[in-house]
């Protein structure tokens, strides 16, 4: 394909995946300021939800500063051209949450499952489609499935009614060749009017080049976050991706300098810690572990004295998938007991 004539929809993640980096404590004013800045910059799709999707408010994932209803109600009425999406992970959220989001004006619902478990999404994708929503299937931890398996799972989501399917590199583990193989296989498996998306994490500093590789293989929706605000070492930094697209002649419809200003003037000052590839975030990408485990592992290190990096490696060995945040403390305690740091 010819990337020089390509148009891409950039989907901002800073108000959903970015919730992980903020422990789900973004204020309503911060949400409004970022969303309005992105709207003016020409970003057409902005996700607003608890980091773990609708209904994610929990001990396991963290209680947010405000409910999904409050965040969505604060942002949606202010948007001049941008549309707002919500994430839903079956097993955490239900169709009741989907109906609530739809009622508040959410136009895009993204239904996420582990990359081999697409069949749990039938109820939710089906309802999204029946409600006339832009309905997206989101195959997480896509590095854990072969391109062929992923294509088969993508076909299931398409058969339930998804008009777009994502290859989601939740662990920031994939190399560009892994992305190419998966996007190509999914592209070939789906109808030509079904869109393909890619969601990257920056744990190996490959999110921008991986997103470009995805576009070159047929993806036309790319997730990115202002200043990269997201789990682990963050998502694909939106302003960097837009700059690279501009250089390559890929149209995003986004004003680069306005996007830079949102990142620099609003998002960076509200970060709890500098978003960078520290040794723990790097280990997520290296071991293939779900990016939102990062801050939980750091907290477990504080409490149990086992280095976060070693907890992350253990979670990789145990083949943990997205949502198993409970196993971080469990693994830390088991390691602490084995090292004599805690009574057995």
């Amino acid at each position: 394909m010819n990337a020089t004539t390509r148009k891409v929809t950039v989907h901002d993640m800073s108000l959903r995946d970015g919730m992980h980096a903020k422990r789900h404590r973004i204020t309503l004013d911060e949400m409004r300021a970022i969303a309005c800045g992105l709207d003016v910059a020409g970003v057409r799709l902005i996700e607003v939800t608890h980091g773990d999707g609708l209904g994610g408010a929990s001990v396991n994932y963290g209680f947010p500063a405000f409910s999904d209803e409050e965040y969505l109600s604060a942002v949606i009425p202010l948007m001049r051209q941008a549309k707002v999406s919500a994430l839903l992970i079956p097993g955490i959220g239900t169709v009741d949450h989907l109906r609530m989001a739809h009622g508040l004006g959410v136009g895009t619902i993204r239904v996420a499952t582990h990359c081999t478990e697409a069949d749990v999404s039938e109820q939710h994708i089906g309802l999204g489609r029946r409600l006339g929503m832009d309905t997206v299937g989101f195959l997480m931890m896509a590095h854990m499935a072969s391109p062929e398996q992923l294509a088969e799972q993508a076909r299931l989501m398409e058969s339930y009614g998804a008009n777009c399917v994502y290859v989601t590199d939740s662990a920031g583990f994939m190399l560009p060749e892994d992305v190419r193989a998966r996007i190509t296989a999914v592209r070939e498996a789906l109808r030509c009017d079904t869109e393909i998306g890619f969601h990257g994490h920056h744990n190996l500093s490959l999110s921008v080049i991986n997103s470009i590789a995805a576009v070159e293989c047929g993806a036309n929706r790319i997730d990115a976050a202002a200043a990269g605000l997201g789990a682990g070492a963050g998502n694909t930094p939106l302003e960097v991706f837009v700059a690279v697209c501009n250089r390559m002649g890929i149209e995003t419809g986004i004003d680069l300098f306005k996007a830079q200003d949102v990142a620099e003037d609003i998002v960076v000052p509200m970060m709890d810690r500098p978003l960078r590839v520290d040794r723990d975030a790097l280990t997520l990408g290296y071991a293939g572990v779900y990016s939102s485990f990062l801050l939980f592992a750091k907290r477990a290190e504080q409490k149990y004295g086992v280095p976060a990096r070693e907890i992350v490696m253990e979670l990789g060995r145990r083949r943990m998938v997205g949502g198993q945040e409970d196993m971080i403390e469990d693994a830390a305690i088991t390691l602490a007991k084995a090292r004599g740091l805690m009574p057995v």
Partner: protein
Amino acid sequence: MGRKIRCALIGSGNIGTDLMMKLRRSTVLEPVWMVGVDPLSDGLQRAREMGLKTTDQGIAGLLPHLRDDDIQIAFDATSAYVHRENSDALTARGLLVIDLTPAAIGPFCVPPVNLRAQLGRQVMNVNMVTCGGQATIPVIAAIASVQPVAYGEIVATISSKSAGPGTRKNIDEFTRTTSAAIEQIGGARKGKAIIIINPAEPPLIMRDTVHCLTDSAPDAAAITAAVQAMVSEVRQYVPGYKLVNGPVFDDRRVSVFLEVEGLGDYLPRYSGNLDIMTAAAARTAEMFAEEIIAGRFDPRSLQGVAP
């Protein structure tokens, strides 16, 4: 050997087949019928091999035989969507129905917490909640027996291979039914349930985590003792039920990390989620059967009474 109460199993999937194997060991229950819809299903084939009567015509294939075969208890392991119809047909004919779907028409039953209380209520339908509910609600109830629990949350992780098509299609019903039972049986004022399916190979043993938020500072010693006692009680009917870590205390949070290994009756031992459901259902039915045998409970006298 004394008298046995004759039973029918409806649903020849993973749960129904595992339950059949457990009932064959019971001293008070006798599995007589296995009902399916797919003549080629593994469950129906096994039932035939084990000498049960079978039908692939669904419940319609069973109803004409209930009286002649003296069936008094039916287990429904189909799906929440068809359970109501099944239950109405069976209770109208005087059967006690043990519901293993998340339909939750009848009262919830989690044996170590409220089975004794169910026996006196003369109900015709009891619901076994969900696998995650059976694995965690005893622990929530143990914590709530020490001090008030404002919030109870559970995370159940099951292996991909042990999650059948019913569970997958019913995933919202799992979270709704489990949350409701956390409140009604567990004693938490607000409940939340999360389920994760993990495809790792070799398959992971079922894991269950309980997080509670207590109203006041948790009494660590009393809660630890109550949780350990409850784990021993569950182990009486699910020997592979194990406290891996905890209780952990962090301000008002109490977290308990559990593992459920199965007996490997039908699916391999990693499928503790099957065992804890089927073992709880079998234990519940046995207690009712003992009541029937002793003449203290007669479901036939209650036929037509709404559950």
